[in-house]
């Protein structure tokens, strides 16, 4: 029972809700929680983005100008952790909360209270990470992978990072259990597994990946913690432990993790491309199987992050071919998206632009990944800016572009207003141009041998770094335009119809825009 502002006793079941702060603190409504997730994610995106700009400002010129090398290491570490765990993953959980119940005809997520907890756990976790910058010794400066022996020797900032990872892990495990239960148990009558929307499918597989590998990461950082304070020697070589063991345990988590941050994006693209091609998705079943194949293969390729850590030739060859094998299901997906567009009635609204930009840039990131998969090449490129360019093509142009596509695609459903198409397109082109300006030149830097995670560099790298830094500032400032577009769309704008995109398919377009607080209280029947 909740008290509303006018003092009248009401229950949530009657369609009313507490107002003000208590609404957001105690909400169990999937749309409220989705909104919270998305705003949290955007806030962390800005925090992590400011860190990226500090990094790029330091790298604008050779030499040390702005920050101490120790501080640089801390900011690089936090940038990675915040962008992966604070920005990308919560963004996709936000989309899942908002859209999966709407898409499968469920009235809410399976566990409302749990859903509330999953979100509010993120706040202390992110505060631990950000405030660790101000404790004695500063934040963890070991890189987001937290490799020992350095992570065993660092100051208390490392402990805060470990606790933060624990809480983030619990949050995403609870969120994933909720999503799996919702997708498995709450689908509308008649919606068989192979009639499910692709976004629900990719999230179901992602959620299974999360509950399989997040606990392993939690275990790895717990071992780090006991090595640091409780005298165990899992990784501490001084006590007979093996630092390379940490790398194996970490990447057993870490490689599936990089698919965790991209698979929901694949799902979003599989909705946006058919909507603006006005054709059903080409090869739906093969999309499902390709997603599952990518997820399963992701457990057998972790060694490709460790080619230079000391690995027998047999292991290197195994991981090399297993990694290359992932290109097959990914290729199936890219083929299907392209085939969906083939002879479609294409229009290029902002979501479609981001979706095509995603395909174009993600394929480039995929190809540089294939280059790095080759052991003989990787030994040369390991820990150079080529790797940095590669994973920003997959994570920024992959995960972030698909998140932008999702926001523009579903924003009319959330707010009931159309956003400014003109400004949306400007946002796309600014993002596209500055993204490539930032990261494309980093391929050249890496090939020329510039190492990553170092605040200074040799003079011959100066020109490309200056270009990259200017691009980064342009990319960062362009996102303020995105914020402006979203806020103006929330405040007003042309009224959005229930189905603002004429080619869009799915149950989410059968509810009104903006989506009422409670939807699908009687489940639709799928024939």
């Amino acid at each position: 029972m909740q008290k509303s502002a006018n003092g009248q006793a009401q229950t949530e079941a009657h369609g009313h809700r507490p107002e003000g702060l208590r609404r957001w603190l105690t909400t169990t409504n999937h749309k409220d929680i989705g909104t919270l997730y998305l705003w949290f994610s955007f806030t962390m995106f800005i925090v992590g983005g400011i860190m990226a700009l500090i990094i790029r400002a330091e790298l604008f010129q050779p030499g040390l100008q702005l920050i101490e090398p120790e501080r640089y290491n801390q900011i690089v570490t936090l940038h990675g952790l915040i962008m992966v765990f604070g920005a990308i993953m919560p963004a996709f959980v936000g989309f899942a909360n908002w859209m999966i119940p709407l898409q499968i005809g469920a009235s809410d997520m399976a566990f409302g209270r749990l859903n509330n907890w999953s979100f509010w756990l993120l706040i202390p976790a992110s505060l631990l990470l950000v405030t660790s910058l101000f404790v004695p010794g500063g934040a963890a400066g070991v890189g987001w992978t937290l490799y020992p022996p350095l992570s065993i020797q660092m100051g208390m900032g490392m402990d805060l990072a470990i606790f933060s990872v624990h809480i983030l892990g619990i949050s995403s495990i609870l969120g994933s259990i909720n999503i799996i239960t919702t997708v498995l148990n709450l689908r509308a009558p008649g919606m068989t597994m192979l009639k499910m929307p692709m976004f629900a499918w990719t999230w179901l597989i992602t959620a299974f990946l999360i509950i399989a590998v997040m606990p392993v990461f939690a275990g790895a950082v717990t071992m780090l913690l006991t090595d640091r304070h409780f005298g165990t020697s899992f990784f501490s070589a001084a006590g007979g432990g093996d630092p390379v063991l940490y790398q194996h345990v970490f990447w057993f988590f870490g490689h599936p993790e990089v698919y965790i941050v991209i698979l929901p994006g694949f799902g979003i693209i599989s909705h946006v491309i058919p909507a603006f091609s006005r054709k059903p998705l080409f090869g739906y079943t093969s999309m499902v199987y390709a997603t599952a194949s990518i997820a399963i293969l992701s457990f057998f390729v972790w060694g490709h992050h460790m080619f230079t850590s000391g690995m027998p030739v047999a292991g290197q060859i195994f991981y090399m071919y297993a990694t290359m094998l992932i290109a097959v299901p990914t290729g199936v997906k890219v083929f299907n998206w392209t085939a969906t567009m083939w002879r479609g009635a294409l229009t290029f609204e902002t979501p479609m632009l981001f979706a095509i930009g995603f395909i174009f840039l993600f394929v480039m990131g995929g190809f540089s990944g294939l280059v790095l998969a080759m052991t003989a090449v990787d030994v040369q490129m390991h820990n150079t800016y080529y790797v940095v360019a590669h994973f920003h093509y997959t994570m920024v142009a992959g995960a972030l572009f698909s998140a932008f596509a999702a926001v523009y695609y579903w924003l009319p459903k959330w707010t009931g207003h159309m956003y400014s198409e003109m400004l949306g397109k400007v946002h796309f082109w600014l993002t596209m141009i500055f993204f490539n300006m930032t990261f494309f030149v980093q391929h050249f830097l890496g090939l020329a041998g510039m190492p990553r995670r170092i605040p200074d560099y040799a003079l011959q790298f100066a020109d490309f770094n200056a270009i990259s830094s200017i691009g980064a500032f342009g990319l960062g400032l362009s996102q303020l335009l995105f914020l402006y577009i979203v806020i103006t769309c929330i405040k007003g704008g042309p009224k959005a119809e229930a189905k603002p995109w004429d080619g869009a398919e799915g149950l989410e377009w059968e509810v009104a825009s903006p989506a009422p607080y409670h939807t699908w209280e009687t489940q639709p029947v799928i024939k």
Partner: protein
Amino acid sequence: MSTAPRPINRRTFIKLAMFSMLMFGFGYALVPLYSVFCRVTGLNQVGQDANPVNTQVDFQRVVDIEFDSNVHDMPWKVSAVQTHMAVHPGEISQAEFEVVNTRNEVVTGQAIPSYAPPEAAQYFRKLSCFCFNKQTLAAGQKLRLPVVFVVDPSLPKEIGTITLSYTFFNVEGNIRAQSVATPDRS
């Protein structure tokens, strides 16, 4: 939707929660699994003594090494402990020479090697040799000096015997040589 979760959801929750607990345990299980895997396959030898195996030995071939020694204007008696050895090319072997200072005062000398046939010299690799340094013997001192060597497997087929001969020279009184030489460690 403040009602308690439906029983089917509760069952799914318990299954999934148990699965993630299991995976937390699996993270720990990776530690012994990793050691077992490395031991069974012999992949990771961290922390173990290195036992280098010389794979370059040519067991099909035997080369006879003869040892000879003499002194040049020195009060030392030098003799090879063993007059000859049969070695395989690639095999690491050690030979010793015995030197005696017959004079009643400290004498410093250095040995210079020579080979017969002379073309064998480039295939005879000394890893450690008393001839690398000056040797100083106290009055009447007797000393055994080792030489560790390996015969290169690419030694031409027609060479079946190598003679290693050392000649000792007196370096005492040579002030310049002493001033640049490294400290003696006899």
